[in-house]
Every structure is written in structure tokens, then in C-alpha cells.
């Protein structure tokens, strides 16, 4: 008798992803969708899509969706969750969206302990607009607006959002994961599940930062991109849990 060990989740619509070949946005979408399905909350979920490559996330997640303005997904999610406190609300945001233009919104949603979950896709670059520097771009890494590589003296060291947000009391759960290998992908899914559980338990703001690739704008093959993530991103952005409800004061 055959048992399905891996099948497409109902958390996703039938629409094929528009992402570039090997872009790990697709993996992360799937993980979120699987978690929503497994927690049985698809029907009561409202997702907030960002402006960025994942702007079309509203076509993919099989639940109600709201497309936010650039960086303001946490504010939009706040509006939704305050109106519908018993629904499951999440934002899905890139690093330009969350760590640059949307800094104030994510910091204050975390401070207030807004009871939604943020999936923060850190690919160290602006994908959608063609490879401009992000606040998370590594020192030395080239970008179309950092043609000579990011320079510390000019643009500073990249920002570590998980660490920064963890200083806020309202942030109940924060973890950084990566989707570079099956093992890490499974860990990522666990973290995402935990984040949604924290929301369901009403404990406060929860966020999972996912290190992700952008082969297109990194100018690499998908395989090279995975390796680059492992060699360069993970050392600067250490994986692990930064905040758990136990620690919430």
C-alpha cells in the first residue's frame, strides 16, 4: 500500500509560482502553507503580501489575502487583527520591505506585541526591482546600487533584524532559519509552526527570519546560490532562536 509522504499542500492555490528558477521563495511559501493546513487554520487566515518579489503571494496562499503597500504589511496586519482578533493573520515580507522602508512598522508591531506572525525572507538583496542593495546586503557584496560592493564606511554593516527586534518585550517568538538544505528546511518549518502557535496562544508578536537565495540578482546558478548562502550569510546571520514565550516578561 502506498502512503503519500510528500504531496502538494491545500494551503497553496493551483497557480504556479512566478519566481525565478531555484528561488527559495517557493520553498518558504510551501512551508507556510503546510503549517496553515496542518494547524487547520486556513479558513480563518488572512495573509498580508508585501511589495517585493513575493507581491503576488496573494495569488498563491489559499486563504484571504491583502496586498500591502511597500514596508507597511505590519501596519496592515495590525489593522486586520484588531478588527478580527480571532483570525490568524500573517505578513510575508522581504528584507527591503521589512528591514528598510518598513523598519518603523515592524519595530512598533513588535513593541505593541501585535498578535500576528511575520515571515521575514532575508535574501540580502532587492529582488523585484533588480538587485539593488538591501540593508541586509553583506559587506563586499555587489548590488546594482553598490557596484563596487557594499562598503562598511559608506553604508554600515548589515542589519540583523532578529537580534534587534528581540530587544522588544512585545516580541514573543523570534527565530532565524534557513532553507538551504532539507534538514534546515524541516527546522524552518518547525519554527514557522511554533510562530503560528504563539499567535494562536495570544502570546504576542512572532517572527521567523528565513535566509533565502536570489540566484538571479546574485548572478549565480541556484546551486551556487545555496552554497553562497551557506558560506556567507549563515556566518553573519547566525541561525537559532532569539526569543521564546518563556522569556516574555
Amino acid at each position: 500500500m502506498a502512503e503519500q509522504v510528500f504531496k502538494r499542500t491545500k494551503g497553496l492555490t493551483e497557480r504556479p509560482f512566478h519566481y525565478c528558477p531555484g528561488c527559495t521563495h517557493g520553498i518558504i511559501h510551501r512551508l507556510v502553507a503546510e503549517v496553515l493546513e496542518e494547524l487547520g487554520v486556513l479558513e480563518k487566515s488572512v495573509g498580508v503580501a508585501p511589495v517585493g518579489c513575493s507581491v503576488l503571494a496573494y495569488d498563491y496562499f489559499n486563504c484571504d489575502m491583502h496586498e500591502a503597500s511597500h514596508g507597511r504589511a505590519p501596519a496592515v496586519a495590525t489593522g486586520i487583527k484588531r478588527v478580527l482578533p480571532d483570525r490568524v493573520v500573517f505578513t510575508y515580507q522581504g528584507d527591503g520591505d521589512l528591514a528598510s522602508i518598513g523598519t518603523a512598522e515592524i519595530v512598533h508591531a513588535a513593541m505593541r506585541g501585535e498578535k500576528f506572525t511575520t515571515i521575514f525572507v532575508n535574501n540580502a538583496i532587492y529582488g523585484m526591482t533588480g538587485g539593488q542593495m538591501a540593508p541586509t546586503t553583506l559587506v563586499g557584496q555587489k548590488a546594482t546600487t553598490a557596484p563596487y560592493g557594499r562598503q562598511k564606511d559608506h553604508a554600515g554593516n548589515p542589519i540583523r533584524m532578529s537580534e534587534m527586534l528581540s530587544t522588544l518585550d512585545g516580541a514573543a517568538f523570534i527565530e532565524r532559519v534557513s532553507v538551504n538544505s532539507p534538514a534546515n528546511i524541516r527546522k524552518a518549518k518547525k519554527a514557522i509552526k511554533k510562530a503560528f502557535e504563539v499567535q494562536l496562544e495570544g502570546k504576542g508578536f512572532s517572527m521567523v527570519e528565513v535566509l533565502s537565495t536570489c540566484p538571479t540578482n546574485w548572478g549565480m546558478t541556484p546551486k551556487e546560490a545555496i552554497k553562497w548562502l551557506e558560506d556567507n550569510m549563515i556566518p553573519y546571520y547566525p541561525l537559532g532562536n532569539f526569543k521564546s514565550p518563556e522569556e516574555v516578561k
Partner: protein
Amino acid sequence: MAKVKGKVTFKEELCKGCELCTTVCPVNIVKMAEDRINVKGYHPATVYEMEKCIACGNCATICPDTVIEVEREKEDK
């Protein structure tokens, strides 16, 4: 211990030829089908020696485009 046998199916038309699945197969059976191009214009991934599959699910886990489904054939029961 009963040997686990797996079966992998590819929705080839979704494949973008990124080759990530080929890097994570513990028995190294996921390959790009160099002989054909799908509607999207890519050589799709495929498995030629299905009997070696142990249903670990790694390929499906890393596939960004939900191309792959995996079944486990339970020998006994």
C-alpha cells in the same frame, strides 16, 4: 527491517530546471532530463532508477516549485 521503497512523481510542466533536487538525493538518482524541454523551456528533473528511491522526501522538500510528490510503498502489512 523492511526495506522502504519510494516513488517520486514530477509535475514536469512546473519544473524550472533549477537542479536543487539533484543535489540532495542521498542515493543520487534525481537527474535533469537532458533529452527534453518542458513548456517553460527547461530540461525538467526526473528519476531514472526509481527502484533505488528510499522515499526520504529530500528532493520534494527542497523543490521551490512543488514539482515533486513522494510516495512510500510499505513492503509488508
